[in-house]
């Protein structure tokens, strides 16, 4: 009853604060849209490579759609890279190729590296193929000569046999004639034996994707983590600031002068702001799926559930943090401290590859569990059984923080 009075109040306050509502509901959509376009075309990057005195055959194979070639008349790589804003410079001295990378953009460096490597491999293959072709030609001419020889031999045998048959038939020796006829057949059969030429097998690749499809982009991979992050960030901020306001305007103290339980206030907050978090989640998830056609492999309900738990953790964390602040400005100061680091552990950087102490940090970040679960559901179709542990840990975070908040309110009223 008292909890519901608080919930109603939270709803009314939020619905009247149009700007906060807009921030909560529209800002995530705006950022998601931006991200969609930013991360959509990730393969069109082109690196510029300067070349000097390099064999045309080498240049031809490096010249791919990811690398543009510029020819220059200087062997000073460093100077040319700076002067013409190149990503790399390739020079040749006899058989030695020397490449200098600008390395101001690691992606360009790796593009050139890849093109160069694959180009050189291609070149090697080509020479190999030419050699093989020559060998084949030689082999074929030998074969032809051999064929001619055998043909001539057969011809001789055939004529010899034919005269022998004719002689035998003339003698009336039928048995010998038949025997010779058979030999004749055999002799002619060997010449018509097939001469199959060996054809080179050319390989084609056919790709299958277990998760996602060939047009999976960064956006698709990271959007679940970002979904979780937005909910976390906005709910943290809004709940923290609103309890802070409640404290600084004295309404919290006034509330506590009524028989309301401390837990009823916290529950009221959880339900009230939790409600808005649900709307935000549904809006953002549906938006990304419908507008950006994100491939959702798992259940949408699990996405909602995970996001809701994440929102509740953010809510309790926001309320908890607000106890240590005296103004909105101080609340904002906690964002780079509490919220921003979490995004690094949300799956943008693989946690498995981190130093062990960083991994330990990851495991105290609620967003690590939330984002992992979201990514698993969206891209791999994980079920409740797969992400159950993550969800339980989120519930654990929420319960502990809620307890701390209830105890923390003793500062304002002792019972």
């Amino acid at each position, binding site marked *: 009853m008292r909890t519901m*009075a608080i919930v109603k109040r939270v709803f*009314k306050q939020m619905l009247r604060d149009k700007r906060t509502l807009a921030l909560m509901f529209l800002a995530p959509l705006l950022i998601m849209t931006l991200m969609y376009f930013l991360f959509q075309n990730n393969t069109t990057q082109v690196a510029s490579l300067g070349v000097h005195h390099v064999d045309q055959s080498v240049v031809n194979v490096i010249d791919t759609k990811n690398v543009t070639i510029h020819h220059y008349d200087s062997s000073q790589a460093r100077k040319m890279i700076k002067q013409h804003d190149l990503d790399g410079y390739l020079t040749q001295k006899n058989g030695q190729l020397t490449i200098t990378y600008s390395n101001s953009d690691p992606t360009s460096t790796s593009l050139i590296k890849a093109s160069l490597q694959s180009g050189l491999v291609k070149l090697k293959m080509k020479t190999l193929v030419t050699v093989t072709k020559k060998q084949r030609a030689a082999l074929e001419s030998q074969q032809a000569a051999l064929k001619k020889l055998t043909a001539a031999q057969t011809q001789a045998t055939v004529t010899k046999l034919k005269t022998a048959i004719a002689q035998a038939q003339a003698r009336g020796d039928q048995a010998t004639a038949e025997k010779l006829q058979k030999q004749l057949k055999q002799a002619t059969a060997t010449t018509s034996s097939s001469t199959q030429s060996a054809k080179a097998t050319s390989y084609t690749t056919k790709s299958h994707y277990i998760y996602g499809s060939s047009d999976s982009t960064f956006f698709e991979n990271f959007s679940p983590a970002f979904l979780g992050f937005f909910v976390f960030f906005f709910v943290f901020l809004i709940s923290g600031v609103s309890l802070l306001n409640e404290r600084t*305007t*004295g309404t919290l103290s006034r509330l506590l002068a009524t028989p309301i339980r401390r837990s009823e206030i916290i529950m009221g907050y959880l339900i009230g702001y939790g409600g808005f978090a649900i709307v935000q989640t549904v809006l953002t998830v549906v938006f990304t799926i419908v507008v950006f056609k994100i491939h959702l492999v798992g259940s949408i309900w699990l996405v909602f559930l995970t996001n809701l738990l994440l929102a509740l953790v953010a809510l309790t964390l926001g309320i908890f943090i607000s106890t240590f602040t005296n103004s909105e400005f101080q609340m904002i100061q906690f964002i780079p401290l509490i919220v921003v680091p979490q995004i690094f552990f949300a799956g943008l950087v693989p946690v498995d590859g981190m130093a062990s102490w960083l991994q330990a940090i990851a495991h105290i970040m609620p967003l690590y569990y939330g984002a992992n679960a979201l990514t698993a559901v969206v891209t791999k179709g994980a079920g409740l059984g797969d992400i159950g542990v993550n969800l339980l840990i989120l519930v654990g975070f929420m319960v502990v923080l809620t307890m701390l908040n209830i105890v923390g309110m003793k500062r304002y009223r*002792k*019972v």
Partner: protein
Amino acid sequence: MATDYVIAKQVSKHFGHQQVLNQIDLTLPAGMIYGLIGPSGAGKTTLIKSILGMEVVDSGTVKVMDTVMPNRAVMAQVGYMAQSDALYETLTARENLTLFGQLLSVPKIKLAQMIDYAAGLVDLTSQLDKRVSGYSGGMKRRLSLAIALIQDPQLLILDEPTVGIDPELRQQIWTELNKLKDTGKSMLVTTHVMDEAERCDYLMLIRHGIALAEGTPAALKQQYAVDTIEQVFMKAGRMQDANDGNS
């Protein structure tokens, strides 16, 4: 006047090194307006919060309605008006009253009636559906008083209730408080305004956490041989300072 609504005995409280309350005794029977006067920082608000049970006292006991404080349930029987207007500005006055009515478990049928009564008392009936953010300082003060009355409590604790309220309305409010007193309710009022102190049935002068003097306004004036409570207050203060100097 069968029962005492508030009985505080030997209440002491300190924050850090500062002694805020020093062995205060206070007894508030039914049907009385009890005034607490004293300069800012004298400990009036701390005493009030101790009686409400929002602060825990270091020593001594506080009983409200025969229950040792702090006690959550008893809070429902106390109407409280805080020193600062703690109102939800984005809500209307009616919504503020409704919220606190619900928190104090006022039955739904009775709530609308109580809102009309409390708003009428502080002359806010016509402004009830306006948002508090558009209210003047005086209007907010009156709304705070209305909230204190919402559950029709027997005991009202009012921390500086008439600050920022114009003289005419102040007059009106005191008339109302007296009417409430006649129905058997009691009020514990803190004030700076000396002419308000004169209206109280009983006064306690607090300074530096010490109860300097107490009694009916007439008795106090007689005791200190002066004509106004203001003079009583100043004389008592000087005597306290003189004593501190001696000791």
